[in-house]
């Protein structure tokens, strides 16, 4: 189907099902229960899952296939966001032109930085990309404030000119981002017994873009171009002496992944029209590296899983505070309750970084292939147990060997 082989089609279908049903899957706990804290099915976080999934998929095309470790990819995401917000300010609140422009600008930016950085390889390449991104961040935060609005971040105001559209909505507020009239912030709620599921227009737009991005990445992985990129990672000398020029291949991969980053940045601005400079900081670049490795570099689904994992921890764990913990353990006698709260407390709320750090270490120690390998092992365990059908995720993951 769609020019994919059976395995890849299955994988795509699984991802399709997961993204379309995400409002259900991510909200497994009744709204009123103590565990509702773990529900992630609200629009903002679901959008983030999709957006960072796209970012990581794109990064993986460069890093997973060619092995070139860019430490400055956040710069492209930032540039994409800034372009999109400027489009909203100057042109129209329709997200399509904004996103197209962010992809183009990020691609051009990647072309320039990639052209220079790819003159070196290995860690020298990494540091060059890092240096470019850090320069972009530092300048965006300070000297370029007229363009980027520095510390606060570029945002819409009531005085934006906006050629196609009005500066202010009828009720005097700033107009909202839309796709030909469909407002990105609009949502539908569905109550089923104690559960409530939210279907947000913004999320479904992101999800469709994610699916397209994912589909394209499968095509790239399976294409002769993808094979060349893997050959570059494997042995550049041989490639050179086989009459192939690695430079344009790596540069193309760099630009493509930069465009993916720009797409993610544009989407981010489309969901929430603000672009902050921190998006370009090295920590943000490091985050996508971690997402990719955590999920499984070079696998198709891994980066998406990694992105979801990190964003989940950041947004869910950080919100668990002491009183929530007391709520959970309230069924215990007071002394025991306090004891458990004291044990769990350092790992949640303000300690969410600690849990994330421990998770990184555990995954890399026990699952060298990242979360995808975890899925494969679970899948294998299931198959051993009388060939029971494995979970969808494990099934998806096991498609991956040989990447």
């Amino acid at each position, binding site marked *: 189907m769609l020019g994919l082989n059976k395995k890849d089609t299955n994988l795509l279908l699984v991802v399709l099902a997961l993204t379309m049903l995400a409002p259900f899957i991510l909200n497994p706990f009744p*709204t*009123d229960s103590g565990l509702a804290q773990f529900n992630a099915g*609200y*629009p*903002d*976080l679901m959008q*983030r899952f999709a957006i960072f999934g796209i970012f990581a998929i794109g990064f993986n095309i460069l890093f997973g296939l060619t092995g070139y470790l860019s430490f400055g990819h956040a710069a492209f995401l930032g540039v994409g966001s800034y372009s999109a917000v400027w489009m909203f300010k100057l042109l129209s609140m329709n997200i399509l032109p904004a996103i197209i422009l962010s992809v183009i600008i990020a691609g051009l930016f990647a072309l320039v930085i990639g052209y220079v950085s790819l003159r070196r390889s290995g860690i020298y390449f990494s540091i060059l990309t890092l240096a470019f991104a850090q320069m972009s961040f*530092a300048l965006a*935060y*300070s*000297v370029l*404030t007229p363009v980027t*609005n*520095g*510390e*606060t*971040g570029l*945002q*819409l105001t*009531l*005085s934006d000119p906006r050629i196609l559209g009005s500066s*202010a909505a009828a*009720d*005097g*507020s*700033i107009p909202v981002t839309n796709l030909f009239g469909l*407002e990105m*912030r*609009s*949502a*539908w*709620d*569905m*109550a*089923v*017994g104690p559960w*409530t599921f*939210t*279907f*947000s227009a913004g999320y479904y737009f992101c999800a469709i873009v994610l699916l397209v991005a994912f589909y394209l990445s499968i095509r790239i992985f399976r294409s002769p171009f993808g094979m060349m990129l893997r050959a570059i990672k494997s042995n550049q000398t041989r490639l050179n002496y086989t009459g192939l020029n690695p430079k344009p291949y790596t540069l193309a991969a760099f630009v493509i992944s930069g465009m993916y980053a720009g797409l993610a940045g544009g989407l981010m601005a489309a969901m*929430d029209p*603000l672009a*902050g400079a*921190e*998006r370009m900081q090295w920590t943000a670049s490091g985050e996508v590296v971690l997402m990719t490795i955590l999920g499984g570099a070079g696998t198709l689904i891994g980066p998406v899983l990694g992105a979801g994992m990190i964003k989940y921890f*950041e*947004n869910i764990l*950080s*919100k668990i*505070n002491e*009183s*929530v913990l*007391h*709520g959970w353990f*309230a069924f215990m006698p*007071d002394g025991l309750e306090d004891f458990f709260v004291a044990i769990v407390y350092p790992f949640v*709320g*303000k300690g*969410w*970084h600690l849990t994330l750090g421990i998770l990184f270490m555990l995954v890399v120690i026990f699952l060298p292939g990242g979360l995808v390998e975890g899925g494969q092992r679970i899948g294998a365990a299931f198959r051993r147990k009388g060939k029971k059908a494995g979970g969808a995720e494990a099934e998806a993951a096991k498609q991956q060997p040989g990447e």
Partner: protein
Amino acid sequence: MSTSRFTRRGVLKTGAVAGAGLALPTMFTSRANAYVNEPTGDTVTLGFNVPQSGPYADEGADELRAFELAVEHLNGEGDGGMLNTFSSKALKGNGILGKKVAYVTGDTQTKSDAARASAKSMIEKDGAVMISGGSSSGVAVAVQGLCQEAGVIFMAGLTHSNDTTGKDKKANGFRHFFDAYMSGAALAPVLKNEYGSDRRAYHLTADYTWGWTQQESIQASTEALGWETVENVLTPLAATDFSSYIAPVLNSGADVLVLNHYGGNMVNSLTNAVQFGLRDKQVNGKNFEIVVPLYSELMAKGAGENIKGILGSCNWQWSLQDEGTKAFVKSFGTKYGFPPSQAAHTCYVQTILYADAVERAGTFEPCAVVAALEGDGSSLEGVDSASNAGLVFDGLGNGPTLYRSADHQCFKDVLVTKGKENPTSEFDLLEVVEVTPVDQVWYEPDHPMFAGGDLGQCNNGA
């Protein structure tokens, strides 16, 4: 132990179907609720968005303590704190409008992106009707913008930039904390008294929006007193070692160094300045002086010995002797064992003010709350200005205070403080040198440093 449960937005909304049947989808934008996150259960959820990771984590932790205390007092637990001294008596200690107050917390990471994500989850997932907290202006402006769009109330935490209620002001946002202009206006006369009017100042300024407005304000108010500004040098936010910025001060002919830095930047630049012997230096026959226009207790603690004798300004100090302050310090100190910081104070007050406004408005509807916070047009004594109109209250620690309806900025006396030479305890770091009366720090809403913004219309989110 009490369990705090969250009323999630719309659990029982619009005649939700009981049992397992599917509900008819209702448009978010056109649902039966009058406004976003209307509390329908017996609780109401507030969102406290503070830095929990990164350099301002301790400040965030202190804000969170104040929020918890405020929630306790609103729910009628504890000793009631400033509810007893507050001039408005609308709050009865039975929650807000009879609904028990619950809260959710989040981590801003002191990044505008993360802060917005966290605030969004509070609004979308937890059904918060009000967001408060934060310890930087970038975050405050970003979250304020979000709350305006989403249709909830934003009660700013610690934010000092002129922009928050200047060019970035929003109808749904309110600031109790003072701002850079007020710092300059309050400090200048004290600086003149202490150091004379013939001084040459050298500014080091953090190279981002807050730093610039701070520097601009101080420069304007000191120059008005006859000071000369020798140089203004911008320093990168990421700088940790300020030696290369301090060294040129030595031979610049300046006799005052103004550090427009906050947080870790301020601790490091002050430490470096003291290292270079600036405090023991004599220039132009005068003692060299260092001024830090804005500092907090935590920064003073971080700076240790170096803060001694350094002049700066504060929004509030726990050692003030008014009844409100005493009540607040007592309940905070009893609960946590140490006195509250000014960030904690402002967060506590903001929560109380919000609750009071809701109680007076009789509804959680944002536009009604905005109207209640904008007050009845009463004005502050001693200030002769057409814009002197809004909500006047007292008993929350700063004396009579005006929430000005024109820009949603609080006006009250500003404290000029000094690092204590002989602290009696580890909390006793700052002493109040002067309480600058409000008329000296007053400005008009169209003052050039605040111009360019527009409150816009309040937004109910419906």
